[in-house]
């Protein structure tokens, strides 16, 4: 018999790995991806494939030649970042812009801080906001939802529901259309139904907990609800706010990013409320029609503070009298 192995306890492991967690997220994104391919056709395919491949390639190159560390692309986190970045972009975005976005997302948003686990900001959102500010025209031309659309960069565009709300236009999609995703917007954000299915899967697999998404959605619901009750002519109903824009995608997939979200349940409540409040403030009073990306990035900056000062409920908490 070979030499015995001696190691400290525990001697069993759940078998969980970073790769498994990432794969779980990818599976949860499948319904939204199918909807994207359906309503945005060829464009969706090109943008998503470009984004994923670029992100993986950039991570591999930076890790090998600049950081000179071990290969990390096998943990699949670059694939997730690539797909989530694509989901935040319009499907008619030119390839070169997508590649720049991937470079910023991975290079600046993730690798410059030392790779997975060290970044303070959500990399996909860093990429997306960079593109939004650098290429405002291309980033705000939203293709219409046309089943199996063969057009890519010349896809027919229209205003999204949120731009309609911001500019007080009349043509807001019906509730059913908003729910299944038959409306304009970035590739992954349109279908509330598909995203909720993904949420259910993530909860089932225990990849994420319910705290962040539910808190964000609840906060938005309550805040917009109050404004709607006060003045229904100026403000849209809370349900419209929940189902339009990037709120569902942001709440379920972007805000729950492990690395940039708080570590305790209490901290997650504070984080979720913060995102909800900032999103509503930007949507209702800011000059951008959508505020989720900014809200999440701002609260990402607060996460270390939240982690330092908000401690979990301790067992046997001795209350100082």
């Amino acid at each position, binding site marked *: 018999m070979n*030499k*015995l*192995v*001696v*190691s*400290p306890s525990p001697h069993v492991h759940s078998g969980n790995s970073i790769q498994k967690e990432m794969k779980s997220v990818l599976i949860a994104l499948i319904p939204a991806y199918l909807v994207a391919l359906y309503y945005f056709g060829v464009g969706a395919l090109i943008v998503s494939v470009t984004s994923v491949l670029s992100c993986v390639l950039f991570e591999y190159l930076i890790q090998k030649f600049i950081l000179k560390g071990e290969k990390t692309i096998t943990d699949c986190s670059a694939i997730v970042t690539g797909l989530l970045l694509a989901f935040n972009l319009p499907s008619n975005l030119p390839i070169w812009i997508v590649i720049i976005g991937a470079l910023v997302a991975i290079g600046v948003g993730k690798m410059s801080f030392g790779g997975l686990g060290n970044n303070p900001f959500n990399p996909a959102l860093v990429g997306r906001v960079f593109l939004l500010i650098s290429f405002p025209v291309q980033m705000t031309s939203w293709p219409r939802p046309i089943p199996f659309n063969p057009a890519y960069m010349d896809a027919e565009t229209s205003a999204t529901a949120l731009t309609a709300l911001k500019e007080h236009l009349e043509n807001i999609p019906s509730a059913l259309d908003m729910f299944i995703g038959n409306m304009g917007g970035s590739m992954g954000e349109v279908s509330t139904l598909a995203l909720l299915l993904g949420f259910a899967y993530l909860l089932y697999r225990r990849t994420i907990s319910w705290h962040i998404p539910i808190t964000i959605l609840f906060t938005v619901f309550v805040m917009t609800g109050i404004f709607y009750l006060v003045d229904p002519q100026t403000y849209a109903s809370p349900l419209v706010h929940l189902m339009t824009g990037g709120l569902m995608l942001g709440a379920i997939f972007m805000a729950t990013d492990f690395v940039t979200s708080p570590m305790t349940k209490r901290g997650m409540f504070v984080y979720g409320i913060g995102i909800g409040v900032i999103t509503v403030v930007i949507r209702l009073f800011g000059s951008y029609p959508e505020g989720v990306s900014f809200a999440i990035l701002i609260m990402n900056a607060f996460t270390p503070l939240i982690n330092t000062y908000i401690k979990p409920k301790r067992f046997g908490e001795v209350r100082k009298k």
Partner: protein
Amino acid sequence: MNLILVSVLSLGGIGAVSAIILYFISQKFQVEEDSRIEEVEAALPGANCGGCGFPGCRAFAAACVKADSLENLACPVGGMPTMEKVANILGKTAMPVDPLIAVVRCGGSCEHRERTNRYDGVKSCAIVHNLYGGETDCSWGCLGYGDCENSCTFDAIHINPITLLPEVDEEKCTACGACVKACPKNIIQLRKKGHKSRRIYVNCVNQDKGAVNKKVCDVACIGCSKCFNVCAYDAISIHNNLAYIDDKKCTLCRKCVEVCPTNSILELNFPPRKPKVEETSNVVLNG
């Protein structure tokens, strides 16, 4: 034009007022300090290694200034040259001190001490020491995971990848004591560097009975007392089955090294011994 004038005057005014306030505050809150501390600190190496026993060079400088004499105050990194400089600044005399060096007292390399199990976990001596006695059957000996190497700020101690034992670089070691503190098994000791860097020590810390040790490590000290018997200077003592050489009494005669049955006593930096010449008959037959 008006705008520029107003801006310049107002910002300039704010700057001037702030400068005046800061000047008065710095005067009022200035810490009174003996200016010699600054001078002494400048003469020190600035490694902040703690080898002198003080938390950093500034603290040592303050201690030197405050003390009546420089006895017991020595900087191991700078050595005598630095202490002479300090003595000059303060008008005191530097005390000569025997230079010390870190000595690793374990000879249980892979060759001499068999590895009987495989450790799989965090490769840190402190953590393994907390768990069990290590990959060999000698629970006193060096674990080889390098806590000493990690603690050294002078790059003076490294784990040899073949023997899995630490080796001290004589040129770089300043005897600051960091590795001594880092070793959870108290294997490393600061001993006198010795004349011409020569030193003799028992290369083992195992306190188990000799019969047990022999099976576990070829070069373990078995507490047989042969060295104790042969030492004419009363420098060797045997406690708990382990011999110990007092470096203050040792005269480096090397008799103990010759008699040790397990080669557990090491002599460092000595010239090789002359081989014993055998008495032969010098009759040369002609023809």
